[in-house]
């Protein structure tokens, strides 16, 4: 990805157009940041302040009361941990099986290769929402309702990622691999030590995309998990409530906490994530 052009050619450095554009951009950015900042501001209020119409800072000033109340309730920690490890497992499994399959489609010759690939590409259009009933039924049969595997396994099939990786592998020159093959390396070794290193950017892109989706996925975890010990953050925040009723500051503190990991990751890996979305985004979401 090239860095954005600093100026359209021929444009003055401080032209009226630039100033107007800057103003519009700043206004839009403020508009887009505002809702989240408002949530953050609310999270730092006392409950009585949060429950009345008040400005950015409540009458009682700033406080971390809501955060402390939330963290002393052990559930949030368990949910965050569940979100983290299930998302990691989903990412590792998805990337692994998709990359292996994509490599086979790109490099290996076997009967039925074309129609099998066509079937997988066609499957990209299947909305996961269509499958919730039979998948739930299947998990019942396998006795996987309310288990981590029931949550993870149905999320590791990503035909779009096979497609994207295959496209990428197609563009990688085969000469390096052939040289290694002549030296007697087997396919798996070639894949591992030659193809994978060359594919790091695309693998990172796919992994990031899969991780974001897994971390935020709602519908399937919502259906398959009822046990509060096994819930992920989005499910826990949605289904379990405080016995003492809706507490706005605490709710917003939870929302902020649940978003923090991905925002931090974004700040560190902005470039990779943007490239990731740009390359995998067209594969659908």
């Amino acid at each position: 990805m090239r860095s954005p052009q600093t100026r359209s050619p021929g444009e003055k450095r401080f032209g009226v157009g630039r100033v107007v554009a800057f103003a519009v951009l700043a206004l839009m950015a403020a508009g887009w940041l505002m809702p989240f900042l408002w949530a953050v501001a609310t999270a730092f209020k006392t409950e009585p302040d949060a429950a009345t119409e008040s400005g950015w800072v409540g009458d009682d000033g700033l406080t971390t009361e809501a955060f402390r109340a939330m963290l002393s309730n052990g559930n949030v920690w368990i949910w965050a941990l569940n979100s983290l490890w299930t998302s990691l497992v989903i990412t590792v499994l998805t990337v692994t099986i998709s990359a292996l399959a994509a490599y086979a489609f790109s490099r290996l010759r076997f009967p039925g290769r074309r129609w099998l690939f066509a079937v997988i590409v066609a499957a990209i259009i299947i909305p996961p929402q269509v499958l919730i009933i039979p998948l739930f039924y299947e998990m019942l049969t396998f006795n996987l309702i309310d288990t981590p595997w029931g949550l993870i396994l149905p999320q590791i099939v990503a035909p779009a990622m096979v497609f994207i990786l295959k496209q990428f592998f197609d563009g990688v020159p085969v000469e390096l691999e052939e040289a290694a093959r002549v030296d007697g390396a087997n396919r798996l070794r070639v894949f591992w030590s030659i193809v994978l290193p060359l594919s790091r950017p695309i693998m990172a892109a796919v992994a990031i995309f899969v991780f974001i989706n897994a971390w935020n996925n709602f519908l399937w975890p919502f259906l398959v998990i009822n046990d509060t010990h096994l819930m992920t953050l989005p499910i826990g925040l949605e289904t379990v409530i405080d016995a003492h009723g809706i507490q706005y500051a605490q709710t917003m503190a939870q929302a902020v906490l649940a978003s923090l990991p991905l925002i931090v990751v974004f700040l560190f890996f902005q470039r990779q994530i943007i490239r990731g979305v740009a390359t995998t985004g067209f594969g659908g979401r």
Partner: protein
Amino acid sequence: MTAATETRVARVATRPSSATATRAGRERLVSWAFLAPFLVAFALFLVWPLVHGLYLSFTNQSLTGAGGSWVGLENYREALTDATMWRALRTTVWFTVVSTIPLVLIALVMALLVHRGLPGQWLWRLSFFMPFLLASTVISQIWVWIFNPDIGAANSVIGAFGIEPIAWLQDPDTNLYAIVIATVWWTVGFNFLLYLAALQNIPDQLYEAAALDGAGPWRRLTSITLPQLWPATILIVMLQILASLKLFDQAYQMLIGVSTDTTRPIVQYIYEAGFVGYRFGYSSAISYVFFALIIIVGVFQMTAMNRRRSLS
């Protein structure tokens, strides 16, 4: 196309000697080994559910495990005469229309502005894309809070313009639009990034040539940038339509406890029929009606795109 030529070359190459024949045999084995993990998962968690779901749609299967008798086309007959289902379809399509337009246009404006290279690049990108990183649950909680009719920020904002407070999410006349607002805020960053990537792929030479011809910024926008973005726009619109048709999370979460027919998207009806109403059979039938809609839209988009491609 490249794949096809490669196969032909491969076929020619593997024909004669027995040594290459065993090599081909080994390669076949290796191929299946590479494919097996994905194919097993693909078969278990995608193909089988798809087939079994179709079967379930002809039965009266219940969530509880009871039922399961064959009922023929009864579920489909019921679905096609079910006013609630039609209304859910209408809601979904209407949401798709009113959400896709701003989601594409605002993303385009954002990308055009950011692409000018004004200072603060990371801040712009962070502001516009960050909401996309949030879980639906989180955005729902934030927007329910903002749309709170008594103490919400939304009513304070419109109050500053002298507009009466609105019960955004409770009023059936406004709640779908409240969902649209939240959705635009949430997901526009995704389209913004796609546009940004497309903008960066426009060759500089085009602009340089235009500058030599003395074209002003407006000319450059209308005669180079926008036409060059057209293929990306088509793709973004297509993806957005498919994404909007799948509306569920935020509508369900923001309108929990608000019982109204006017804002139930079709995916929510699938969920409700199956899990709230325990009717797996009927819910499967609605799933397939929805699937048909997706396929029709998809095929329509494909043909539209192909026709364009063959025209140009």
